[in-house]
């Protein structure tokens, strides 16, 4: 039996120079991610605060954090997490 990470809601800040569309594209390419939603919650002169909603059958959280750090996103916190139990088929 395995536990799969299916949904994450993360709040983060990114520089304005980084494109949100490209960021969403990049995050969606991560293994186990099916959908990436970004909502801009705040804007200032140099940065934008975003709410990321990541959905997928089995999100690779380590890879997700690396991709965010590489894209200059500062993660403020993980606000919502959804995990589920997946029964592995037994061999008969």
């Amino acid at each position, binding site marked *: 039996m395995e536990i799969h990470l299916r949904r994450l809601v993360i709040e983060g*800040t990114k*520089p304005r*120079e*980084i*494109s949100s569309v*490209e960021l969403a594209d990049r995050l969606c390419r991560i293994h186990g991610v099916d959908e990436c939603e970004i909502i801009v919650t705040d804007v200032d002169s*140099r*940065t934008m605060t975003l709410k990321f909603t990541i959905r997928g059958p089995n999100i690779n959280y380590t890879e997700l954090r690396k991709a965010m*750090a*590489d*894209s*200059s996103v*500062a993660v403020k916190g993980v606000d919502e997490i959804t995990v589920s139990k997946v029964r592995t088929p037994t061999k008969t």
Partner: protein
Amino acid sequence: MHMCVQVSIIFGIRDTVEWECQVLSKWLFSVAKRITTLRSEIEALHREITQMGADEIARRYFVMNAFDGALTILGIVVGFTVSGEGSSRQVVTAGAGAGLAMGISGGVGAYMAEIAERRQELRELEAHMHHSLKGSRMDRAIPLTAFWVALVDGMSPALAAAIPIAPFLLVGATITFRVAMIASIILNLAVLFVLGLFLGRVSKGSMLLHGVLMVGIGGIIVLILLFASSLP
């Protein structure tokens, strides 16, 4: 028997040709794939450079430094014209030296200045975000964008200087020194005109007007130099 041998040779050749065609098509496919990958990598690099605002800075440096290069050579050629002395070798040496010096100083200076400015901006951004951006894409893009700006800054005056010097390379074999001087001045004004067209396109204004304006500035420079040289 003889017929059987001939048929088997033909089938053998056909199989060999088919195999060669398969190998060739696989090779062509891998080359096409590499070209596509290279193209997407170049597009990604260009996106990085554009996102960092380097395109705008590179355009500015291109116009400023090409203008410098063109007018420097214009000054050298007009100076030789007025003095009535000198050989094509001297003009080419002086022009090439000036173009090379401008290119190297422009490139190195721009690279160091851009690296310093962008690192300072990154530090300010890190302080604003309360988050280290070391190792991020923005951090990695700094030397790349500085290199791009430096390349434009170095190449533009060198190129703008090289074009008007070219006629002097043909002196002796094809044209006389006087003809080369006239051709050089015309080429120089043509370079200024093209720069004006580029400026007009960037500013979305009248390309022709900008071109004429730049040629006018070049013409004024020539007149000032001629006037200055006529003074005792």
